[in-house]
């Protein structure tokens, strides 16, 4: 999959996930450099700790090449049915969800072997 296509699919699937809760605000930030990409998506929907935990469980599946190249292609393709963050979890270097109190921040890092995600963060 071309990198542009992958980014579009990931943004589409995460946006689908965020919009299911009907937020009044959604911000998508993309920071791209040679070694990798940092995507951060914010919304203003207040979620309980239980909900955050569930989301984290679904996305913390780790990279799975045997699934990502095949089933990963379902990511971001349609809006029928629930959004599935695990489709993204398999494909990316690291994914995290932060509860900001007034909404969530989903951080996604895509990168090569030399990629250091600490260098790609959004300051508070």
């Amino acid at each position, binding site marked *: 999959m071309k990198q542009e296509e992958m980014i579009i699919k990931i943004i589409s699937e995460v946006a689908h996930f965020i919009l299911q809760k009907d937020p009044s605000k959604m911000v998508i930030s993309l920071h791209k450099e040679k070694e990798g990409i940092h995507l951060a998506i914010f919304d203003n929907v207040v979620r309980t700790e239980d909900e955050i935990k569930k989301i984290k469980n679904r996305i913390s*599946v780790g990279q799975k*090449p*045997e*699934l*990502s*190249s*095949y*089933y990963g*292609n*379902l990511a971001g*393709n*349609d809006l*029928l*049915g*629930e959004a599935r963050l*695990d*489709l993204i979890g398999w494909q990316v270097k690291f994914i995290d969800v932060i509860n900001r109190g007034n909404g969530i921040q989903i951080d996604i890092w895509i990168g090569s072997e030399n990629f250091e995600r600490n260098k790609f963060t959004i300051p508070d």
Partner: protein
Amino acid sequence: MQKFKLHLFLIIYFMIIIFSSFLVFGIKETIKGFIRIQISPGRLISDYFVLGGIGGSFLNASLLSIISIILIIILKMDVSGPVIASVFTIFGFALFGKNIISVLTLWIGVYISSLIARKKFIEYIFIAFFGSALSPVFSIITFELTMTPYLSLFLGILFAIIVGILLPPTAIYVLRFHQGYNLYNVGMTAGFLSLFISSILRNLNVDLKLFDLWSEGKDIFSTLIVPLSSIIFIIAGILKKPKNAVEEFIKLQKENGRLPSDFLILSSKDATFLNMGILTLIYFLYVLISRSPINGPVLGGLFTIFGFAAFGKNIRNCIPILLGVFVTSILLNKPLNSPAIILGALFSTTLAPLSGTFGFFVGFIGGVLHIILVQYTAGWVGGLNLYNNGFAGGLVATFIVAIIDWFENTINFKLKK
């Protein structure tokens, strides 16, 4: 070693089947039947119980499953839901259509495809495993066309490899048609490719009349293998923490099953084993009640349910489909134990995500449409696609998803999700 505990469990399971076959049917007979299967055509419906005997069929199925697990170990993969689904699907279909050479040639094709795409083979491994649905391409060219044996073998291998190369791009694209609501995606892919292959062969005046090898299947060994396997997995599931396993199993029934739903990740190993055992027992009971024979193809259907109960199927999302198939068969006055109807009932579970996501009614309609369509799809492609129900199911899922999508986007009509 801990990492390979489940791999070992599965290898031992298949080894037990091999040794039991030797014990019950005799080593010589079993091997003779196994060899006969390797050199015979295997289009739909080729019940290997007729062709190579029960022992030879189980040896073929178990060896192919063990080869698959060895490949999984070589690729350092964990035993996951899709791994269990693919291994048991290979096992099931190796009782009626797959043999070792035909499967390996297709895998070589998929491997070449991964080299062309500059990907690792592991990235296409499930396409390779499920892609063995097109095994008949090798066998029809090698064993059914009138050419010299060496030329037939050469062309059989060549064409199977070419088909293997074409599988990944097609399978990935076909996913978008039904958006993950048809569990046997490669079945739809294989059906799609078979339309072209069968048309080419028909233009070359090759006769693609369907096979009709269907045994009565009253043997005690083949009757016991499904309930025994189910009980082994149920015991393995509840052995350590029975209460936890049952609670997780009940929660697992809420999963919609849309591709890819790995129950080993979404739930737990124990609950998944319970789901495999209980769901397969329910379908085994249906086979008994419908007075269907327990032969190669029927066992193939039951073992595919067994495997996919780790990768999308549960009681809640399968039963509405079965009811749709059952009611339609009764209304159309079709015998429940005729080949197309019983196989349709078992394999229609490919549509489980439809009822899991959109509810009972949509699942029921899926079952109705599936059994109406599946009786004819095998004929369209001359039995070249072993996952005929995956093809029909894919068409049904695409049709239903298109209608639901249109409703939701035009009149803001929301079905249960």
